[in-house]
């Protein structure tokens, strides 16, 4: 099947900052994304778990964004500007998709 190369951006970010991240993505012209829940984790800022929590502070989710390699740098820079202040990490990898025009 005919596939084309895209970039897969994964952003693990603290929950209160998700609306801001979405605003950043929207502003950068990103057409779609998916937010995946996370259960628990550990990092430089300590460990966390969502069990029993009633506040969104100190908890992470993972935002998955498939974008065109052409816009990767712009998007990455803006996302990174946000992540310099909020807790979170970014990863980038390669991915093949079928309907290239959709991303």
């Amino acid at each position, binding site marked *: 099947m005919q596939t084309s190369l895209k970039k897969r951006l994964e952003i693990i970010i*603290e929950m209160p*900052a998700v609306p801001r991240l979405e605003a950043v993505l929207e502003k950068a012209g990103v057409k779609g994304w998916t937010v995946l829940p996370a259960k628990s984790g550990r990092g430089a*800022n*300590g460990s966390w778990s969502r069990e*029993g*929590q009633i*506040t969104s*502070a100190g908890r992470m989710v993972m935002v998955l964004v498939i974008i065109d390699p052409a816009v990767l740098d712009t998007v990455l820079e803006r996302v990174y500007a946000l992540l310099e202040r909020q807790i979170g990490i970014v990863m980038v990898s390669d991915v093949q998709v079928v309907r290239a025009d959709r991303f």
Partner: protein
Amino acid sequence: MDIFTLAEANLISPPILFFVLGLIAAFVRSDLSIPEAIAKALSLYLVMAIGFKGGVEMAAGDLNWSVGGAILAGIVLSALLPILGFGLLMLTTKVGRIDAAAIAAHYGSISIVTFIAASDAARFLDTPGEGFMVAVAAAMEAPAIVTALILAGSAARASNGAEGHGESRLSVFKEIAANGSIVLLIGAFFIGWITGPRGMEAVSPFFTDIFRGVLCLFLLDMGLVAGRGLLRNWRVLKPGVIGFGLYMPLIGALAGMGTGLLVGLEAGSLGLLMTLAASASYIAVPAALRLALPEARPAISLTLALGITFPFNLVAGIPLYFWLARLVTGTGG
């Protein structure tokens, strides 16, 4: 009732004991845990019930000036207590300016769960507060944050950088005001007010009868979360900061007592205002500060508010505040 009777009545009540059970379960590393969705639902239920009941009481009582006075008192307390807290932290601990402001915001604002537990204890201790105290609680959530942002001052402004300019204090204020638990508290309050005792009749098995039992389950969760938070993060809490988590509630309660007496509150409502002033937010403020003051380390303020001050207020503070409130208003035996 002397203070020991009050303290004992509070201590051996099921809700407090379930909280202690939660703490113990966390400390013995049990895997007992309440799913997140349930914890959230329990807190929504409690907020809804307490708001609704407050509104129904408003409908039953008569609206007068003391309501306005109490709300004003609450706003003033919430706006000014952070200054005191911030000063004490800067003087007695080594936490930085930003962290001190963040912690001060938590202590100026209120913990709705502590308020709910205190309302329940008040009934238990035969000194129920008045319905309008729900409105006071709602009014006290946000002002502290604005003060704290001013206190954080230039440091925060610098780090916010170019984008930070868009982030006005007003927008933070709005964000807090649209916080789910506040909207629900105020909304349920008005619904109770509109439907009055007749509305209550229809829903009292759900909102009144099972209330204390649900509170038990919720406080079990709070004990688990507080205990695990302590286990995870006690290292970030220096003794000076822990001390602050223990004496700041007392200072807040005294400030609340003075202000409450000024506006002429009676024993039950005074005890609630003292509890509000003594309590530290761990739902709305932590989330809001992650956006308004992201440089502050959430582990410190959250662990302090939920791991130290909440248990202190729940177990020792609330009976103390109500005993004092009865004493200074000359209520009871």
